[in-house]
């Protein structure tokens, strides 16, 4: 790198650096690497940089000068640039070279007291809860409005949401439920076989699927597929001011966006659950017939004997409640979106996590209710 600069030291301790050649984006890193360490080891009291022989100069060149200036002791060093021709001068003026120090003072991150942080977090969570509650209110009011003014329901959007949430989810729900039925039957058969109670595999699969696993698995799949999609859709609309546009056109964004999604979910999620139950039982049937030596007839009759209508309806009621939770949380997180692309990602993630949490929470509540009921 010697070809880019010469260094002389005068008797009075002044260091002269004569830069030559191209001081631009291509060479800056290499020049800086050697030159700044060389200047630093000499620790001069004053520094003169001569740029008379510089052939090309851009803001990377200015950067070299700036870094050299910073090798001097802050308080008593003197720094001078000599032979500045018009073009470098223009660039140095554009970047406000002499004033750069005032920006260069590193901004210290304020150390925040733990109590303040705790308080901030609490306020944030309370705000979040307040928004959640007010959103529940908004959804209920919108539902009442739609009830009394059926024309305000966006039927096309509802049907579209039903297709996306329900029909499109059917293959994956069916596959997962089938495999789930297979697994339960297989696992339970290992235990039940010891007692010669193979036939009760059918009862176990039927009961587990209809009252617990069918509704829960369906809800989790729908939360992952559609809850996140609701949040991302509404979040993107929020960022691009589409929600504001709706509002200024006199629409209630909740009626326009949320009600179709919640309504569609209430209709299709129980239907999906029904399919989930059926496919789960079919999975159990496959294990029963091919591994446990049961005939399809005995398996099915044992299944029918076990399930009561109450059991099925109980499961479907739960799944309708889950559907409301998923759609509500998805829309809520969408409306809460702030910022840019990352905000949408956070909204979708949060929608899935919150709805799965709520699904499990409400399922436990249902279990408690059930145990006191009968």
């Amino acid at each position: 790198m010697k070809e880019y600069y010469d260094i002389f030291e005068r008797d009075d301790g002044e260091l002269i650096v004569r830069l030559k050649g191209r001081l631009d984006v291509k060479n800056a890193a290499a020049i800086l690497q050697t030159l700044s360490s060389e200047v630093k080891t000499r620790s001069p009291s004053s520094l003169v940089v001569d740029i008379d022989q510089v052939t090309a100069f851009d803001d990377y060149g200015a950067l070299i000068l700036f870094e050299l200036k910073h090798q001097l002791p802050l308080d008593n060093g003197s720094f001078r640039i000599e032979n500045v021709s018009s073009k470098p001068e223009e660039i140095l003026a554009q970047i406000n070279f002499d004033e750069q120090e005032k920006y260069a003072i590193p901004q210290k991150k304020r150390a925040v007291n733990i109590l303040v942080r705790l308080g901030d977090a609490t306020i944030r969570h309370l705000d979040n809860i307040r928004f959640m509650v007010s959103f529940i209110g908004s959804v209920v009011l919108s539902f009442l409005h739609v009830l009394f003014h059926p024309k305000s329901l966006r039927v096309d959007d509802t049907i579209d949401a039903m297709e996306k949430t329900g029909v499109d989810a059917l293959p994956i729900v069916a596959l997962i439920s089938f495999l789930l039925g297979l697994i339960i039957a297989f696992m339970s058969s290992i235990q039940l076989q010891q007692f010669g109670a193979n036939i009760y595999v059918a009862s176990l699969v039927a009961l587990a699927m209809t009252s617990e696993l069918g509704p829960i698995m369906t809800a989790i799949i729908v939360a992952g597929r559609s809850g996140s999609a609701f949040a991302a859709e509404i979040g993107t609309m929020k960022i691009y001011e589409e929600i504001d546009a709706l509002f200024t056109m006199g629409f209630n964004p909740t009626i326009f966006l949320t009600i179709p999604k919640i309504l569609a979910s209430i209709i299709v999620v129980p239907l999906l659950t029904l399919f989930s139950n059926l496919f789960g039982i079919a999975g159990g049937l496959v294990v029963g017939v091919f591994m446990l030596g049961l005939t399809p007839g005995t398996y099915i009759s044992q299944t029918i004997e076990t399930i009561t209508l109450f059991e099925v309806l109980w499961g479907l009621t739960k799944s309708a409640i889950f559907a409301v939770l998923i759609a509500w949380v998805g829309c809520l997180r969408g409306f809460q979106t702030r910022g840019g692309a990352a905000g949408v990602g956070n909204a979708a993630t949060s929608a899935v996590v919150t709805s799965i949490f709520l699904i499990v929470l409400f399922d436990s509540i249902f279990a408690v209710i059930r145990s006191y009921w009968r």
Partner: protein
Amino acid sequence: MKNQQKPIITVQNLVAQYGENVILDGVNLEVFKGEILVVLGGSGCGKSTLLRHMVGLDVPRSGNIIVDGIDITNCNDADFKTTLRKIGILFQSSALFGSMTLAENMAVPIAEYSDLPKSVITDLIRMKLCRVDLSEFENYLPFEISGGMKKRAGLARALALNPEILFLDEPTAGLDPVSAAEIDNLILQINQSSKTTIVIVTHELFSIFKVAHRVIMLDKSTKGIIAQGDPQYLKDHSENKKVKGFFNRESSSGQLSETL
């Protein structure tokens, strides 16, 4: 005056097509080193399409685009990357990364392509932001600043590596006159101080007269260039109805029926 110079970008017989829809049909164009070329034309005439092809974002159906000696429609990845290193782009929406502060946005290309240590990069970014008058906003996120500031930040990011060619897609669209004038001044400043070749897509008449060395005008019906030259000369002397209409802000009923 510029014609004796070597072109830095040459577009030969460019045909651009999205699906069935032919946007540009046989465009020939030369951009000379150090000039400010403004591409203009009405909405939907293919201005942005031309720009997207010139930077290699879209692949033409046929034709060649030679940027600084490399045909980017037909070259290997290494050559393409070298070419990309020479160009800076300001997108219409600024395209700042929303999850990063302005300083972090600018650090992305600098950290990737230079060997400068981290503390030096921080200093460099401050200088660059100072140049676009944003020095106090380095720790702001894009959604916290105004549209004009976003454009300036986008410009600063496009200039991060001092590119030889700068592409600006509607740099002053949607800005107030003062912010637009600031951007225009920056463009002139960059062109003068670093001899950067600048290609601007715009239809802001005021900016065109202020910054353009040369303009080319595209048109929807011919799917190509209908006029090129000095903007003042075109305004005063062009015989073409559409060119006249554009510069004098006249709506011609013929043009309307054509687009419908």
